[in-house]
């Protein structure tokens, strides 16, 4: 479609690409075919271990140590890349291919100003000391081009002085400095807030119209849907399906793609289980009217390094009723995690009042990273029984029984009790964390980004599990997330936070369909919609 007859020769042609790492049982990438034309955005989607990042890195000659790359054809911008030496790759990376990684804070040298970083990539086209001024000019130009305001000032900023979105733009600017024909972007928006993500996606779309080809690697189907023209779906190193975005998203041929699409939580998935491709309704829940957890006029400030104070919470009212799921959404720094900590009693509020149920274990926490919330010395059984050991004198035998019960409740084999959490997968670990939260039979669970670190299909299972438990045990869940799709999927009511304040709250459907606050409207607009382009 975007490849007109004028540029019929593809920029990148890959046939039969296989990448095997030393000591691995199976290849990380297995027989991949891929063509990218100029001015085209091709996306590879897949879950962890699918081989998508290895593919991206192989295309820039950075497959890594111990990687064995074989290909029937690997042509980049007319160069046979199979025979390239390290030097050859460096030349290619300097001219034909640019790479943008997920975390700009890690990818940019913290000790160098942004301008110097970009100037480094400009040395090839503008070499020598005399060209320093011209390199600087060009760096300012590039920063402006990627949409950084006041580029003439920002060129002298250090990476840590820029916000996440500006850093990512600066990183893209440095990748663009050598005017590459192909930009490889590995999860370029994953670490960003949704409004910033929208800006970066817009920037990527604009680059395409300038004639740059893009290979976009993402786990997020919605992001891909927003900008890509073609999609490859990968699993276990193999491409399961590829085609135009409209076709793959609208009429997926492979069963895995169908399951992946069904697993994406959104408005459309409300009331439907995510972890099955058929539309199975979720269990019925009946939220009550009684308030089980409430905060009134909560204020919490933190000192800033500059000597001032920052309001993490600036007068927040929140109410969680019996058996309901309350979604708290907001971008990083909005104060949603501080709210969770104050409600849990981990930090005292500077002002305001928290009303908790009687009993110390009535409010339990499920954190984003389960592994770090487990004592490294503990087995699964010890992790799960910790809340019980903390208060009541339950007998050993009784505890062993409850471990088996709890593991079954969260869909794990009771045999897991003796395992060590380190040997479990991410989804299993989060199930163990949920089992621990259930151990004391609480009335409320505070879940702080509980699925953010999980793959889509695992996330689907954990969300289904949470809804099941809420229904079967009458649990109230305070669900904190930056992901509006997830919240729309499972919450009954929603609280939108910004800069430590609640800017909007109410029934989920009400807020999502008729947002009254401009910030909520902006958030929702920025949300990439999977279904927008899913029509054939």
């Amino acid at each position, binding site marked *: 479609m975007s490849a007109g007859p004028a540029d019929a020769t593809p920029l990148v042609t890959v046939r039969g690409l296989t990448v095997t790492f030393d000591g691995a049982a199976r290849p990380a990438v297995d027989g991949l075919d891929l063509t990218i034309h100029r001015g085209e955005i091709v996306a590879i989607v897949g879950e962890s271990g699918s081989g998508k990042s290895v593919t991206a890195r192989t295309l820039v000659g950075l497959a890594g140590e111990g990687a064995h790359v074989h290909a029937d054809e690997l042509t980049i911008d007319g160069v046979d890349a199979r025979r390239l030496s390290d030097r050859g790759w460096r030349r290619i990376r300097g001219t034909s291919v640019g790479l943008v990684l997920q975390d700009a804070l890690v990818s940019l040298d913290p000790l160098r100003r942004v301008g110097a970083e970009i100037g480094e990539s400009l040395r090839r086209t503008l070499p020598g000391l005399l060209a320093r001024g011209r390199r600087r000019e060009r760096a300012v130009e590039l920063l402006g081009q990627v949409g950084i305001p006041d580029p003439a000032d920002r060129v002298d900023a250090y990476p840590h002085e820029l916000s996440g979105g500006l850093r990512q733009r600066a990183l893209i600017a440095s990748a663009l400095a050598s005017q590459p024909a192909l930009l490889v972007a590995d999860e370029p928006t994953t670490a960003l807030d949704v409004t910033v993500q929208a800006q970066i996606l817009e920037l990527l779309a604009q680059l395409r119209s300038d004639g740059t080809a893009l290979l976009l690697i993402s786990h997020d189907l919605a992001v891909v849907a927003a900008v890509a023209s073609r999609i490859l779906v990968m699993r276990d190193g193999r491409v399961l399906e590829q085609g135009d975005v409209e076709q793959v998203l609208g009429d997926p041929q492979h069963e895995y793609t169908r399951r992946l699409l069904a697993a994406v939580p959104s408005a459309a998935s409300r009331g439907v289980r995510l972890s099955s491709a058929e539309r199975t309704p979720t269990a019925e829940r009946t939220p009550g009217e009684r308030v089980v957890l409430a905060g009134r006029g909560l204020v919490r400030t933190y000192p800033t390094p500059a000597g001032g104070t920052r309001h993490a919470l600036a007068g927040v009212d929140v109410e969680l009723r019996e058996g309901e799921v309350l979604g708290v959404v907001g971008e990083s720094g909005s104060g949603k995690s501080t709210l969770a900590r104050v409600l849990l009693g*981990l930090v005292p509020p500077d002002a305001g009042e928290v009303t908790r149920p009687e009993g110390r274990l009535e409010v339990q*926490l499920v954190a984003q990273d389960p592994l770090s*919330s487990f004592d490294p010395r503990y087995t699964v059984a010890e992790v799960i029984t*910790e809340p019980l050991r903390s208060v009541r004198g339950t007998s050993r035998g009784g505890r062993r029984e409850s471990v088996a019960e709890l593991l079954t409740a969260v869909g794990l084999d009771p045999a897991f009790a003796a395992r060590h959490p*380190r040997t479990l997968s991410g989804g299993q670990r989060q199930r163990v964390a949920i089992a621990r939260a259930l151990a004391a039979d609480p009335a409320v669970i505070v879940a702080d980004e509980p699925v953010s670190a999980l793959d889509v299909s695992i996330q689907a299972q954990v969300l289904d599990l949470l809804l099941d438990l809420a229904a079967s045990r009458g649990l109230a869940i305070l669900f904190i997330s930056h992901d509006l799709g997830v919240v729309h999927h499972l919450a009954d009511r929603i609280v939108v936070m910004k800069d430590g304040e609640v800017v909007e709250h109410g029934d989920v459907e009400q807020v999502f369909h008729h947002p009254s606050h401009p910030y909520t409207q902006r958030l929702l607009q920025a949300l990439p919609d999977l279904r927008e382009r899913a029509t054939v």
Partner: protein
Amino acid sequence: MTTLVRAHGAPRTAGAPADGAASASAAPPSTAARRRRSGPRVPVLGWGGLVAALVLAVVLVAALAPTALIRLDPLAADPLTALAPPSAEHLAGTDSLGRDVLARIVHGARYSLVIGVAATALAAVGGILLGLLAGSGNRVLDTVVARAVDVLASFPEILLALVLIAFTGPGLGNLIVAIGVAGIPRFARVVRSQTQLVRTSGYVEQARTFGLGGARLALRHVLPNALGVVPVLATIGLGSAIIGAAGLSFLGLGPQPPAPEWGAMLAENRNYLRVAWWGAVFPGLAVVITVVSATVLGRAIQRHLERSAA
């Protein structure tokens, strides 16, 4: 003593750490089965660690029961055989007073070990206490303790020990105290940073949501996790304590003659190096081998812990 006993016992029992009755009863059959199946497999601590542990075991036996290894008297002087070269009768030769060098080395192990273990224990206890104080979250306490430790650490350990002995005078007890105090900063710094790390970890925060706090939180989570590094540090520290002891004894600040201390032997025999090299070289080797073994074993334990944590 505990350190060394645990260290040399480690390769045999590492499969079943003292986790409680359940794991202890489950572990032995599986380890035995594994051993039977694959014959000479790499030991838990690696070959280097195993050799180091064996060497230290020999040193330990020498310290506990020197007469089991050698029957010659380390103090029996015999002017007729003075400065005799190594032979079947005197495997490591004799010194200027005709005393058997090997017997003196074997009997000297006791001094090195006692000083090394006692000084390391002192350093560990002092360092752990200071480290826990500094890492406990009280900012004033942290500043005071951490700065004090910085001042201590700014002197080379051996110099610090030397200064302390200058105040207290030579002798076994004073030597132990001097070397122990000089070793405190090492432990204090590591324990402090570990404590801070554990105190702000996710699992400590989670435990707070279970209503845990104060002493119970410290005992259940902070202490065991923060002190996990101590055995490794102590094993490595043992090596430097022994070398410190030998160094100070060489200067005549340790056990006094005729005690067969390795450093003192070096000093006594250094004047005869040209005619009787064995008098000084063998005690020197004893120090080197013991110290290297302690360090190698410490690193091996560290690697083993890291691997099983990964």
